C-alpha cells in the first residue's frame, strides 16, 4: 500500500512537473502579454485624438507609459515619435496628434514593458488638413519685388532713347544739306594750319 502511495506521489509530482513544463511560462509568476488596442478620433479642427487601451490578460493596466509613433518613409522605414501618454484608470492613454503633412499615415502605439516592447497593430488615418509644424516664412517686400524690374527697365529704355535722340539729332542736323548751305556768321579763318616752328616760337 505504501508503495502505491509513493508511486502516486511520484506520478503526480512528475505530472505536475510535466504540466508545468508544458504550459508556456510560469503559471504563478508570468503575466500574459499586454495587448494594445489602438483607435483614433478625427476632430473638427483637423487634429486627431489617439487612444490606446492597454490590457494584460483582460485586466486594464493603468499608470503605464504608452508611446505613439508614426511611420515615415525617410531614408528607409522609420518610426517617428508623436508623443507619449500615461494610461488612466481605464487603461486608456490619450494623445492629441496634429498631423503636419497630408496623405495616408500609419500610426502605432508602443508599450515598453519590462518583458519587452509591444506594439499595437498599425492604424491608418488619412490626413487632409495638415498644419505644418515649421511653416515656410513669407517673402520679404513682395510689392517692391514686383515693381522693381518694370520700373528699372522703363527708366533704362528712356535713357537709351534720350541718348539716341541726342546723338541723331545733332549728327543729322549737321549733315543735312539745308542747314549746311546757310551763310556762316563766324569770320572766315585765314590760312591753312601750319606746323612751321617759326609760328609757335613767338609764343614761347
Amino acid at each position, binding site marked *: 500500500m505504501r508503495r502505491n502511495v509513493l508511486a502516486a506521489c511520484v506520478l503526480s509530482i512528475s505530472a505536475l512537473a510535466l504540466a508545468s513544463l508544458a504550459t508556456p511560462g510560469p503559471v504563478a509568476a508570468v503575466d500574459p502579454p499586454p495587448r494594445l488596442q489602438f483607435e483614433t478620433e478625427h476632430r473638427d479642427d483637423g487634429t486627431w485624438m489617439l487612444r490606446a487601451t492597454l490590457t494584460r490578460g483582460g485586466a486594464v493596466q493603468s499608470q503605464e507609459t504608452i508611446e505613439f509613433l508614426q511611420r515615415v518613409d525617410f531614408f528607409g522605414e522609420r518610426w517617428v515619435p508623436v508623443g507619449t501618454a500615461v494610461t488612466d484608470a481605464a487603461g486608456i492613454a490619450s494623445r492629441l496628434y496634429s498631423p503636419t503633412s497630408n496623405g495616408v499615415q500609419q500610426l502605432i502605439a508602443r508599450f515598453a514593458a519590462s518583458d519587452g516592447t509591444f506594439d499595437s497593430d498599425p492604424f491608418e488615418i488619412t490626413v487632409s488638413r495638415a498644419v505644418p509644424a515649421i511653416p515656410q516664412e513669407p517673402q520679404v517686400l513682395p510689392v517692391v519685388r514686383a515693381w522693381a524690374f518694370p520700373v528699372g527697365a522703363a527708366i533704362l529704355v528712356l535713357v*537709351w532713347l534720350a541718348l539716341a535722340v541726342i546723338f541723331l539729332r545733332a549728327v543729322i542736323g549737321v549733315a543735312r544739306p539745308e542747314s549746311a548751305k*546757310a551763310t556762316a556768321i563766324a569770320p572766315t579763318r585765314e590760312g591753312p594750319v601750319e606746323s612751321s616752328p617759326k609760328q609757335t616760337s613767338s609764343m614761347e
Partner: protein
Amino acid sequence: MVATAAEFGEGAALRAAAFRPVQTPGRWFWPVFAALGALVAVAAAAYGYQLLAGLWVAGYGDAAFYGIYEANLVAFIGVSYGGALVSAVLRLTNARWRAPITRMAEAMALVSLVVGGSFAIIHLGRPERIWQLVTRPQAASPIVWDVIAISTYLAATLIFLYLPLIPDLAIARDRLGPSAGRLRRAFYRVTAVGWTATPAQRQRLNWSVGAIAILIIPLAITVHSVLAWAFSMTSRPGWHSTIFGPYFVIGALYSGVALVIVVVAAFRKAYRLEPYIGLPHFVSLARIMAVLGGVYLYFTFSEMLTTGYVRTREEASIVAVLLEGSFAPAFWGFMIAGILIPIALSLVPATRQVRYLVLAGVLAVVGMWLKRLLITLPTATAPLIGDVWGSVQFTWVAIVITLGATAAIPLGLMIIFRFVPILALDEMMEADSRELPQPVAEQPLGAEGVL
C-alpha cells in the same frame, strides 16, 4: 586773365598749337610710346599667364577673395569722372575757363573708363563666358547693373566726346590740306559730317551738347553708385554701409579732378601748350579738388565714427584694423598724404605754383588708389566665423597688370591726340568771340605763370 585766342595772336597760332600732336609731336613721342606700349604688352602677357594658370597667380585665395583687381576696377573707373566734371558740370555752370582743357579731360575720361572696365573682365575666373551676361542675366544682380550702367555711360561719354569734336574735325578737314594722307582726310571728312559752322548747324549741335551734358551727370552718378553697391549690397562688415553710393561718387570726382590736373600738366609740357593753359586753370582745378577732398574726408569720418562708436563685433574688427591694426600705416598715410596734403597744397598761397599743384594731384590719385585697396582688402580678409584672418599677397602678375593699366591711359591719350586736336579749338574761339566772365587768378599769364 583767361587765355583767349585774341590775346595770343591770330587763330593760326591756336590751331598750330592744337594740331601739334597731330602733326609734329616731337622727338620724345616715339620713345615714350614704345616704353608705354612695352609695359602694356608685358601686362597683356601676364594676363595670358593668369588665364592659363588661374587666379591664384594674382595673389588671391579663399580668405582673400577680392583684392587688387577689384580696387583697380573702382579706381580706374573713378578717375574717369574728372572728365565728366570738367566737361559737363563746368559747362553747365558756364565756367568758360575750362575751354582749353575740356578736350584732354573728355579724352582722359574715355580712356580711363575703357581701361577700368577691362578690370571687370580681368578679375573673372572664367572671362570667356561673359557673353552669358547677355543671354542669361539676372536683373537683381549688382554686376548686371554694373554692366548696363558702364556701357550706357560709355556710350554717353563717346557722344559727349564726339559732338563738340565735330567743329574741330571740320577745321582739320579744311586745314590739314595735302599733307595729310588720303585715309586721314577721308576720316576727317566723314566724322565732320559736313560741318560748315552755319547758325542752323550750331544751334542743333549746341542743343545736343547741352542735353548730353545734363544727361551725363546722373549717368555718372549712377555708374559709380552701382559699382559701390556691388560691395554694399552684401552683408559683409565694412562694405554693408549706406554711405557707399555717395562715398564712391565723391571719391571718383576727387581722384578724377586730380588726374585731370596731372594729365593736363603733362600734355601741356609735352606739346608746349603753356600759352593757353596757365596757372589759373590749375588753381581753379585744385580748388575744386580740395573741396571734393574735404567732402571725402567728411564721408570717411562719418563711416569710421558710426561703425566705431557702435562697435558691433564684426564692424569693430574692420575699424580696429584700419585705425590701429595692420592696415593702420596705409590708412593714416592715405589720410595725410592723400587728402590733407593735397588740400593744403591746393589752398595755401605759398604753394600756388603749377609744380606743387601737380604734386597735389599725383598724391591724390595714388592716395585714392590706396584707399580703394583699403576698402577692399580688410573686409575680404576678415573672418565671418572664428577669428582667422586671410593674408594678402601682391604678386608680380597683379603688379604688372596694374602698371600696364596705368601706362595704358597716357598711351591711349597719345594715340587719340594723333588724330584729334588737343585743344577744343571751336570752343575756345567761340568763347573768345563773346563776352566772358573771368576766372579768379592773381598772376597774369606771362613768364611767371608758365611752368
